[in-house]
């Protein structure tokens, strides 16, 4: 079951001038609204964005709506974080926005003062767990831990199609489960910490020990297990995705399975970079992506499970309401990280 759904009704930005109210109606028809939007001055402006996924189609949609162009540079979470740290130190602000990535890196960034707080009025639509309480970031979509399964090999080896976490421990999957290293992969860390949180320390480690025995080696990157399963090097891979079915669609022999007894997840946030010279435009983007219009575009184009619940879910997307999400405390996650990794290191030996 999903988390409590208490929504904060408070709107901070009541300072919007009256004169704009009319305008807002028009824009509401379009499905989005931002009080900072000024079509005249913003048309043709270019913003820079960092992110971990290819967001170009969504950004194109944004440009269609607003005339603002956004160039997105794809990097890994750690790379983005390091760039921001160093860029801040030198006073060179390259990116205006950061869109997609692990929530933990956003938390870390906000703690280091790399992000600019902005409580978007549209953010009120989101559940608390989906956003930072100080407005440093807002979640846009969900990343869900799932299993990539090679159905061909399941059949060939007469295995039970895994549905629950215990199914990964079946004999036939010995050496055939691929998982990344929690120390270097957010996916794996999230899985491990979620299992520990849900099952409790003792039972959790007991299960993990058995799981470890099934895995031939831990890959360095979160994306590796999926590739191994596609290649037939493993039968089940612990993976993370946006809730999309792309991998299934691209590969006939692959099935994405969301464990019935709960799975780890985290939001993919959007945030404004501290020091940006295009603050207004950045705010427009945040408002836009969090709006119904933005979320719908996001869900449609990326086949992603989005944070807003009032968005129509297109065909072929996992409805998060159907999935059993582990209750996750991101803050706790971040704090206990070192300890869990130390324990993990001992358990894999």
């Amino acid at each position, binding site marked *: 079951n999903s988390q409590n759904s208490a929504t904060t009704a408070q709107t901070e930005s009541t300072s919007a001038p009256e004169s704009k109210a009319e305008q807002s109606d028009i824009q509401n028809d379009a499905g989005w609204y931002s009080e900072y939007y000024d079509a005249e001055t913003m048309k043709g402006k270019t913003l820079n964005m960092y992110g971990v996924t*290819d967001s*170009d189609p969504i950004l194109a949609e944004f440009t269609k709506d607003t005339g603002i162009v956004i160039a997105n540079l794809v990097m*890994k979470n*750690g790379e983005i974080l390091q760039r921001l740290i*160093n860029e801040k*130190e030198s006073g060179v602000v390259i990116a205006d926005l950061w869109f997609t990535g692990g929530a933990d890196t956003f938390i870390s960034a906000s703690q280091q003062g790399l992000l600019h707080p902005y409580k978007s009025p549209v953010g009120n639509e989101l559940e608390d767990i989906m956003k930072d309480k100080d407005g440093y970031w807002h979640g846009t979509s969900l990343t869900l831990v799932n299993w990539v399964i090679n159905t061909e090999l399941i059949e060939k080896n007469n295995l039970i199609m895994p549905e629950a976490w215990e199914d990964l421990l079946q004999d036939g999957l010995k050496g055939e489960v691929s998982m990344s290293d929690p120390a270097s992969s957010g996916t794996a860390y999230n899985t491990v910490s979620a299992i520990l949180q849900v099952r409790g320390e003792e039972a959790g480690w007991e299960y993990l020990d058995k799981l470890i025995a099934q895995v031939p080696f831990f890959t*360095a*990157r979160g994306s590796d297990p999926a590739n191994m399963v596609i290649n037939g090097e493993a039968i089940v891979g612990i993976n993370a995705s946006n809730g999309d079915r792309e991998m299934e669609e*691209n590969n*006939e022999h692959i099935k994405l399975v969301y464990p019935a007894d709960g799975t780890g997840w985290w939001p993919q946030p959007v945030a404004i970079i501290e020091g940006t010279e295009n603050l207004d435009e950045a705010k427009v983007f945040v408002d836009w992506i969090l709006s119904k219009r933005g979320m719908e575009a996001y869900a449609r184009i990326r086949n992603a499970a989005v944070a807003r619940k009032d968005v129509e879910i297109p065909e072929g997307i996992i409805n998060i309401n159907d999935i059993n999400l582990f209750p996750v405390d991101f803050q706790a996650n971040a704090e206990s990280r070192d300890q869990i990794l130390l324990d993990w290191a001992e358990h894999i030996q």
Partner: protein
Amino acid sequence: MKQKNSKLIKILYGLIIGFLVYFILLPVMSVIVYGIKSENSLFFSMKGLERSLGYLKNSLIVSFSVTAIATCTGVMLAFTLNRIKFVGRGLLKLLVLLPFVNPPFVGSISYIMLFGRRGLISNKLLGLSISPYGPWGIVVIQVLGLSSLAYILIASSIKKTDTTLEAAARNLGANENDILRSITIPMMLPEISSTALLVFLASMADFSTPLIIGGNFQTLASDLYIQITGLFDMKSAAVSGLILLIPCIAAFVIQKYHLQKKSYFTEETLSSSIEYEEINAYTKFFLISFTAIFISFIFIKYFFIIVGAFTKQWGYNYTLTFSHVNELIGKQYKPFINSIKLAFITASLGSFLGMLIAYLIRFKKLFLSNFVDFAATLPAAVPGILFGIGYLVAFKYPILGIGKWIFTDIKPWILLGTGSIIYLIMIARFINTGLRSGYALLEHINPDMEKASYNLGAGEIETFFRIMAPLMKDAFFASFIRAFTSGMITLGAIIFLLMPSNKVAVQQIFQVVNGGNIGAGAAISLTLSLLTLFLLGVFYTLFNIVEYMKVIKRNKDRLNIWK
């Protein structure tokens, strides 16, 4: 008082030293200081050190094997393809260069699909089920790639073989074996050792192969990458980088001092033909079949990528489809242009600078030459991503990095955040390829060539461009190919410096492959490769246009004579 050099040379040399200090030493020093300064870095815990040393051992195991195998293979390939005449040689000569236009990311996927546990060849064809993951997987993949590097470096110099020496040995009664052992190979020592050094450094610094195929056998370079991208611990990464540098520097020093004792140039700088007139049939058979087998390995991989790009589902469903290719059409073309521009400019400038430095050091006997040599080679030993961090931490300060101590409040020009920084880092990285191939070749050029030019009144610049440059042309092109192709697919070094508005093509592939659509990944990688290949063809033609014109003219002359 030794050789005197003109002001011009001195100024040029000074500028080069400045460049090397600023754009190589400064970033590398920065990253080291950066790593050591941090309180909580892994370096200061015994455990961290132990961990790094463990990875170092892995690195060394892999790199030594790869260096030995790839260098030998490179020598054999260069030998077979340049000195033995046989049918189909031209084709093999072309194919052996394929690894240079390495389609990023999908190469290893192709390899796994073919030779993995359930690979097409290993499992379906041969019925084996061997895990490709582990040290041998790394070695095999690196050897396949680096042998081509070895080949091209050695081949450019093998063309300068003075065959009269072999004739002399033959005449003194030496059989082909003796000649190979006592003349041919020793005469190739400059290029062999130069190549071995580059292969060693490349293998040490390669992080992606261990990541993909290493399984739980990771090397120092891949660990470094994991530390940055997974652990977000750039400082520990810097320390790993420091440890990684130690064996690389050692290799550099060994190579340098090993060579200096002997001379390799002869009176004749070119032989009219270097092909063996006759060669033992068994040897010929062995060499040719070895080459053919090796090249077919390379070829199969590429062929399979082509298959992947045009079939519905790579590895499972081989129905022909153009959907992957069609997908490309919607893609932005600008990153491709950016990539080409970046690769072309940096590869030419880097190779040129490298050759120039090689020339200055070898022929001009200038001060600080060891230092310059070392500084220019250093980037080869530093994994790209670490070098990138170096740039990030060094050039985030004003006036090219040193303004940190001068300007505290005002904000003058900062390199970070400008488009030029990625050009600078790539040039800095490519200098060493030019340098190595330049060295290897210059060993064979009689210094009197240069002196004759001065004597006829040509100045330093004219001499360099008219005499030395043409003689070093092949080596330059070898270096250019290597730099250009690697420039087209470099990501690690520039990821910290790229501007979102100036993306490169390889990023798109990265995005696609990350999305799990390997068919499309294959298609786009292939496109990039073909583009690279096409451009190389164009460059090669342009590069040799003068010669082509001559050949054409000659043939015309001949025809006229016949008329």
